[in-house]
């Protein structure tokens, strides 16, 4: 047996468990993909320069997902004014997606204006860790990935199969992220546009001592707010 064979055998004996795929993490580049959608074949790079809300749902023609799609359609135009595109996904066929979108239009009077990925082979779902085997091995959970114009993952939300998402929170999250980028601030609990934002804590003693005389609204040296 050559040394290379020995090395391979040793490595094989250490990998009895499948190696977990590297899933997206905040601040990392969003995994690239090309997929069939209800708007044709689309690549993630096609969205470069725009924010993207990539979200998965468990299955077409199910009630909670239908309410979510109606809700996402309801915020689509508001998102677009913020430079954000929606991109849905489930492990269903293009035909199923098309039939469901037409059904929503017919039964609820709502047009689905965004593309839906037909991820029949689970390629994108696997890449993004959208399947939670503890819940279902065949359906995607209710995941949301917010990807910025440079292609970086900026936020992730995971909801279980039983619980529909709050699209107002997704709008709020986009507003908060864009406010952070524009003004270099953080946003406090339950922040909404118009509220004061948090000034990042000082990183030096000199800066901390100066903070209270800075004209900012400070409760203490580490806790200052300002209007944005």
């Amino acid at each position, binding site marked *: 047996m050559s040394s290379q064979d020995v090395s391979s055998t040793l490595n094989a004996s250490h990998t009895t468990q499948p190696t977990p795929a590297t899933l997206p993490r905040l601040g990392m580049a969003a995994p690239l993909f090309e997929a069939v959608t209800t708007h*044709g074949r689309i690549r993630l790079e*096609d*969205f470069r*320069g725009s924010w993207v809300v990539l979200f998965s749902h468990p299955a077409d023609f199910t009630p909670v997902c239908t309410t979510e799609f109606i809700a996402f359609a309801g915020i689509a135009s508001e998102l677009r004014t913020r430079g954000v595109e929606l991109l849905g996904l489930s492990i269903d066929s293009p035909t199923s997606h098309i039939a469901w979108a037409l059904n929503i239009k017919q039964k609820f009077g709502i047009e689905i204006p965004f593309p839906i990925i037909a991820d029949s082979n689970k390629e994108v779902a696997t890449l993004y860790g959208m399947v939670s085997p503890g819940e279902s091995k065949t359906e995607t959970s209710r995941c949301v990935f917010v990807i910025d114009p440079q292609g970086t993952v900026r936020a992730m939300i995971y909801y279980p199969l039983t619980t529909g998402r709050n699209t107002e929170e997704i709008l709020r999250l986009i507003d908060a992220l864009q406010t952070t980028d524009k003004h270099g601030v953080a946003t406090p609990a339950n922040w909404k546009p118009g509220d004061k934002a948090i000034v990042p804590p000082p990183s030096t003693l000199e800066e901390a001592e100066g903070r209270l005389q800075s004209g900012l609204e400070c409760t203490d040296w580490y806790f200052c707010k300002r209007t944005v």
Partner: protein
Amino acid sequence: MACISSKGEMTESARKMLTALEAPSTAEEVASRASLPLFRVRAGLREMLAAELVELKDDLYGLTASGRSALLR
């Protein structure tokens, strides 16, 4: 393909993109003139490049002879 229907006919969005390409243009200019989302235009132009309806020179998309005749149909 999103630009060519199952009957082999050009879709409405493809026609809008080709019409917006009277002069060589960037994808952003096509999106603005055709009032289509940029991601859709990028994907559509890629398809139409493969179908040789458009060509790419110096980062500008333009109509090929096939693209011009497809618009007249």
